[in-house]
């Protein structure tokens, strides 16, 4: 990534002249502004940022960014982004997607892009509903959820994006509330810095079709008690009074209270996002109370580009073919006079 002598930008440099068309009050505005604020902190030249999206409310995102971008077709942004990155590894490539775009129509691309570990970043706007098509259930809608296409309640069990991602061997997974721009901005910066595919799930409220779907964990008055914000190297502690924490009880995570039953801060688990073994990360991802947010997993692994570059250098060094003529005229040829 380019880091040298980059102009000092502000969020305005990344704001395009297009009018933003999301519904008033949508969390998408928070995501947009967080990204526009994060980019100047990444130390990259503006021309090296590329935003690729599929279809859905989330996917309008590239139009609002004063960078290179493509608003592509439904579910296929990971494929396009992979091609961009493999063609030019100097670019900072971002996939902006939603729960339907990434896990329904684009499910296949989503798992494979995570498996390969190309150095690109994915931001998934999860609102547990189809917004652009006006309110059908999505792959993350909960059982019983009443939507336009499930008037008597949704009968299809949902995906947990984090579990799916870790199952596909995601090396970086973060989750953040859509009403938390400060932490979101920092997570975007960390996702960019992370070498490999990073996935950020934003719990994004849809004010029109699924209003309040995350309110019980993200609302200001409950979030400290209902969420645990994980930080690498720090004890797993949460609660308004910072008196709750997580310990391992057998094969399960358990919530404990500091000061009760002789529990002290030293008894709590310490978050290790960089651990290769994802067992604990998976437990954290699955947890309902408290809901784990922050960077849950950040394990640096070899990227696809690194493997490819290594092979290419080796083949180049050992090959007798420098130009196509060398290949075309090699081996068995014959003359016609």
């Amino acid at each position: 990534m380019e880091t040298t002598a980059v102009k000092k930008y502000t969020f305005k440099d990344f704001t395009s002249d297009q009018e933003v068309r999301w519904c008033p009050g949508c969390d998408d505005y928070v995501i947009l502004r967080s990204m526009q604020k994060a980019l100047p902190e990444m130390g990259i030249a503006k021309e090296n940022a590329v935003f690729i999206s599929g279809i859905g409310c989330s996917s309008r995102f590239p139009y609002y960014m004063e960078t290179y971008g493509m608003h592509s077709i439904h579910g296929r942004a990971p494929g396009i982004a992979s091609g961009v990155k493999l063609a030019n590894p100097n670019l900072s490539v971002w996939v902006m997607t939603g729960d339907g775009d990434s896990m329904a129509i684009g499910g296949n691309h989503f798992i494979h892009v995570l498996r390969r570990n190309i150095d690109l970043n994915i931001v998934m706007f999860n609102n547990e509903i189809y917004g652009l098509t006006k309110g059908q259930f999505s792959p993350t809608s909960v059982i019983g959820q009443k939507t336009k296409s499930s008037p008597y309640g949704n009968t299809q069990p949902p995906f947990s994006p984090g579990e799916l991602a870790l199952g596909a061997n995601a090396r970086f997974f973060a989750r953040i509330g859509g009403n938390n721009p400060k932490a979101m901005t920092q997570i975007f910066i960390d996702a960019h810095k992370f070498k490999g595919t990073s996935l950020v799930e934003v719990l994004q409220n849809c004010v029109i079709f699924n209003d309040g779907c995350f309110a019980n964990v993200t609302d200001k008055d409950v979030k400290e008690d209902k969420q645990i914000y994980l930080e690498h190297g720090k004890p797993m502690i949460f609660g308004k009074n910072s008196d709750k924490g997580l310990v391992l009880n057998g094969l399960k995570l358990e919530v404990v209270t500091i000061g009760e039953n002789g529990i002290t801060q030293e008894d709590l688990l310490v978050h290790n996002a960089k651990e290769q073994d994802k067992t604990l990360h998976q437990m954290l991802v699955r947890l309902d109370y408290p809901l784990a947010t922050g960077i849950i997993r950040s394990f640096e692994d070899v990227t696809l580009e690194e493997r490819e570059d290594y092979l290419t250098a080796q083949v180049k060094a050992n090959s007798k073919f420098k130009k196509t003529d060398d290949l075309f005229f090699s081996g068995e040829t014959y003359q016609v006079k």
Partner: protein
Amino acid sequence: MSTPGDNVDLLVAMNPAGLKTNLYAVKLGHTIIVDTDSFTKKNLEKAAYKTNPLEDGSLENYRVIEVAMSSLTKEALKDVEGLDNKSITRSKNMFSLGMIYWMYNRSTEHTVEFFNKKFKSKPELIEANTKVLNAGFYYAETLELIPNSYTISPAKLAAGTYRIIMGNAATAWGLLAAAEKSGLELFLGSYPITPATDILHELVKHKHFGVKAFQAEDEIAGVTSAIGASFAGDLAVTTTSGPGLALKGEAIGLAMIVELPLVIINVQRGGPSTGLPTKTEQSDLLQAMYGRNGESPVIVIAASTPGNCFDYAYEASRLALEHMTPVILLTDGYIANGSAPWKIQSVADMPEIKNRKITEFKEDWHPYNRDEKTLARDWAIPGTPGLEHRVGGLEKDSVTGNVSYVPENHEKMTHTRSEKIRLVKNNIPNLQTEFADSGDLLVIGWGGTYGSLHSAVKQINKEGYNKIGLAHFNYINPMPKNTEEVLSRFKKIIVCELNSGQFASILKINFSKFEYSQHNKIQGLPFSNEELIEQFKKLV
């Protein structure tokens, strides 16, 4: 023509000695089936091989199909009682015969009848031979083996250095040449599918030229990764066959509306659906022309011999880059797996390719600024300061490129995209006729049937019908500028295709004043000389 060993199309080598003794008779580029089980150190020494010919590259000008025939035969016979080891070993030739029957479209029925008669008194031998014959037949089916069959004898080969090349390899090499000539890196996004996979196999070898060959998770990711690479400035290609082209349709529409260069290669096979994967057909023409939602014209061209797969892969790249558009190149299983002499072409002698990359911002620049003559837009790639812009599948304003729902603008853009493809006619050669410039009958073909049509028209002309011409199309959308004029020089026209009349329908739409006879065949097989000549004679 002076190629060594102008003899057999296929050799079965049961052991190294058999290979050594008979190799001279195999046509270059043709098929050798070997029993790998018998290529032991001992047998190699017996045949006086210093190194294993299956490993030392000495067979690189043949298509070698390696089969562990002895072990497969043994396994096929494990439940047959009353067989001694010798009988088991001896029946392995039936395995190879079964394979050949599959490849050459022959039924096993008569051979099984023969077993029933010959081994009347030894039912275990009937069972054994039938089992092994079928095992070989099914094995070839599972592997989707295709015979390589291509024979064309042009009057005289031009002087030069030649090699034998298969169509799919020639296609891959044409792309390599185009990348080198245009100074771009080559990106291939592809998913395995018969009979196109050999292009992927060939290109993955060439990392020394910086080729980025990406085997994607599906056909859609194959094309979308190529679109991404094209957006970022590579010469981007996706390869497939009919069902894959169907899957790529939406993405090709995206590449069309964002106006990025993209080469799509469709090695046609028998359809519809899974159809006849190992057999040839020309039935994807209308899919290539129209198989996308909305009005989304792209350039469509077709190769017509194994060797000119090189030229048309190069040409597809040139046209995509110069006109900023997807180009669909149609080849087919017959020429893709056929081998023929190819006059080696040096990149230095290939036509120029001018890509439309721009590097600097100028006042009033917009991403959809167009060249006045071709209507091709500029190619501003990520990483270029000052040219940041967004493209997408939504309709865009004809000037600024921003999203636009204005009715008149949509109509204007639809016409502009269509006109852009129409103008490609100024950048392609005229249609040529062979054997006669005017006269009684014009035989029209396109794509992979050139060899058959050329032979048939040549022969009928020799028989004294000297007013029969052949016009073979390589450029289908748009067609060459002089097409109507060529058609008007003949009294009758017959359009010959391996489908039920797709190109004929395009001709009828475009040049409705002519009458067209048709000769169509939809059997997964190429035309035979006899059937063509019979048809032509009916018309003159």
